[in-house]
């Protein structure tokens, strides 16, 4: 009697469960929809601002780059498709500037990475006067680039500059291409190494102390601990630092503007874009150069971001979870 009465009840209970589950699933997805809507709404103001301050200028300069448009001859304005691109990309001035920019970028970023890592290690390990060390290391980054560039210029001015007198009392370093480029790179390095160091120090903080202790128990020397344990764990931070600094260096302008003003083929792409767009009032060619710089930056950023994907240890697997 008791058995027959409990069995049907149990069955109906079992039948009810899937139905309930289904209902809950649709409820959940509705809730998700609401959540998504709210997400978009919350993003909207920021997205709108981005469109106004970023997307519009980009689209507008792309639009300008498709026209022959020189403010000195406004009546010649004409839509010419990609003619400006052909003009720029077949011009030796552009490629010289591109080469100079690449040289400055590669050399300064590599040197900054090495120096910045050293500085970061010192700042990370210093126990006494940590605040003082960090503050003094960050001073160059706190000085306005143009001001710093001027002080470099004066330092290298023949006759009055102490560095010029010290290094080459006879010559004028800023008037020769090789030495001028070296000075520009030096000024860049002096200026942004602290920034690099700061980013790398954040990476160093990611390396657990236990890991280094374990490595030294395992028999690793200081150098082995650095290369086999610290660097791999820091890799994401290093990539971020490299990305930031590479993109920054690609747009190098202030130092060149103050130190040589682009003389002796020391112009970067930003310099010649400025010369065409602002000084030459050639909106078409200037915009074309801006778009090309933008594309270069975008491509490099893309490559770096692709590298990131596999950089973080176990990132891909953890991301799946």
């Amino acid at each position, binding site marked *: 009697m008791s058995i027959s009465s409990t069995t049907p009840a149990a069955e109906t209970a079992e039948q009810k469960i899937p139905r309930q589950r289904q209902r809950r699933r649709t409820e959940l997805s509705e809730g998700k929809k609401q959540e998504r809507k709210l997400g978009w709404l919350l993003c909207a103001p920021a997205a709108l601002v981005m469109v106004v301050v970023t997307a519009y200028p980009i689209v507008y300069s792309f639009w300008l780059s498709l026209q022959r448009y020189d403010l000195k001859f406004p009546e010649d304005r004409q839509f010419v498709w990609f003619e400006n691109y052909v003009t720029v990309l077949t011009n030796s001035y552009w490629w010289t500037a591109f080469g100079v920019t690449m040289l400055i970028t590669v050399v300064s970023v590599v040197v900054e990475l090495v120096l910045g890592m050293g500085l970061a290690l010192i700042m990370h390990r210093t126990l006494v006067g940590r605040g003082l060390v960090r503050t003094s290391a960050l001073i160059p980054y706190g000085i306005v680039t143009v001001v710093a560039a001027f002080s470099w210029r004066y330092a290298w001015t023949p006759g009055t500059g102490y560095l010029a007198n010290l290094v080459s009392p006879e010559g004028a370093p800023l008037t020769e291409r090789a030495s001028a480029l070296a000075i520009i790179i030096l000024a860049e390095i002096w200026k942004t190494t602290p920034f690099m160091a700061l980013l790398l120090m954040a990476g160093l903080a990611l390396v657990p102390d236990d890991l280094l*202790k*374990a490595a030294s*128990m*395992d028999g690793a020397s200081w150098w082995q601990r650095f290369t086999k344990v610290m660097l791999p*764990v820091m890799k994401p931070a290093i990539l971020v630092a490299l990305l930031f600094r590479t993109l920054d260096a690609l747009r190098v302008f202030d130092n060149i503007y103050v130190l040589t003003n682009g003389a002796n083929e020391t112009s970067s792409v930003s310099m010649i874009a400025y010369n065409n767009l602002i000084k030459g009032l050639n909106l078409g060619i200037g915009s074309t150069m801006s778009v090309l710089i933008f594309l270069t930056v975008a491509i490099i950023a893309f490559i770096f971001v692709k590298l990131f994907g596999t950089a973080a240890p176990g990132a891909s697997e953890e991301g799946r979870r």
Partner: protein
Amino acid sequence: MADIVLDKVTKSYPDGTTAVHGIDLEIADGEFIILVGPSGCGKSTTLNMIAGLEDITSGELRIGGQRVNDKAPKDRDIAMVFQSYALYPNMSVRENMAFPLKLAKMDKATINQKVEEAARVLELTDYLDRKPANLSGGQRQRVAMGRAIVRSPKAFLMDEPLSNLDAKLRVQMRTQVSRLQKQLGTTTVYVTHDQTEAMTLGDRVVVMRGGYIQQVGDPQTLYDNPVNLFVAGFIGSPSMNFLPAAVEESMLRTPLGDLPLGERMKRTLGASDAPRQLIVGIRPEHFEDARLIDDTQRAKGFEFTAPVDLVESMGSDKYVYFTIEGEHAASPDLEDLAADAGGADLPPQDSLVTRLSAESRVRDGADAKVWMNLDKIHLFDPRDGKNITLHEGRAAGVTAS
């Protein structure tokens, strides 16, 4: 394999604090020794000094008869397992375990063979090509052990290796660690704050407090014959009950009633410098329902009646809680213990925990007649925490003649 000797080893920091005060400890070859104590007792500092991760301020450390004070960790030939496991996240399990061997410049075939062997012992063969991020906590812990055993070092140092595991896994791993140590026969120093781990794992246990060794001995000795209030309260779960007691004539006045004193205790307490106030310590299992006691045992004990607060039936036996009226036992040792446990492991001061047979029929709220074993009572001097019932290293109770 080697013995480890700590000879008056001290660790002081530049700011003047001393973490370890001149510790003397001899660890025999192949021994499994546990350093246990509340946080800040100096156990991890001691371990780090043996490892070479911290400098020794004074004293001497010898491994295998050789002074190693000034040797770098890598030259001491010892392996360490960390609480955080400290696995290299960028390396696979195989690479993690091979790392110390690679650094020792062994050839590939030997490395492979050793790694495979360790993986087999630790049941990690299927996971050799995974990254640590894709392992469970227990597996990571085993990889950390594997990295230690592949080198066949002179000694293993383990710094709370099981603390990051959940309770069930911790018990499983505890047996595995124990079995592994027996199998390898390697000298092992194991640091933990968990007294259960200390009791179940070690050949010998070192109880530490505030940078000093309190007592060294095998687990049963520590449990039965604690030298002071701190060790008595730290070892055992639920922990020992502590009650205040006043010495009067040939009696000991306690909140449970007047306890008789034997000849030897009378002599000890009769001394001019003997304390007048004492702390009575008695473990929960030394109580019994008076109705279940036969006459010969009844004579050796003391009976009292009290209202029952709470009965917890564990199946095998019953935990019965009573409330103690009046004053509480007070001593610096007890304050330390309470601070460490956060009141969790230690019974509240006004409560008496007893462990009675499952057959006992005491009920919540009703009065119960309880017998306690006078042979198992400890008396402590509240001023320095010393156990004054110890006679030739063994606790003798209060009624011994």
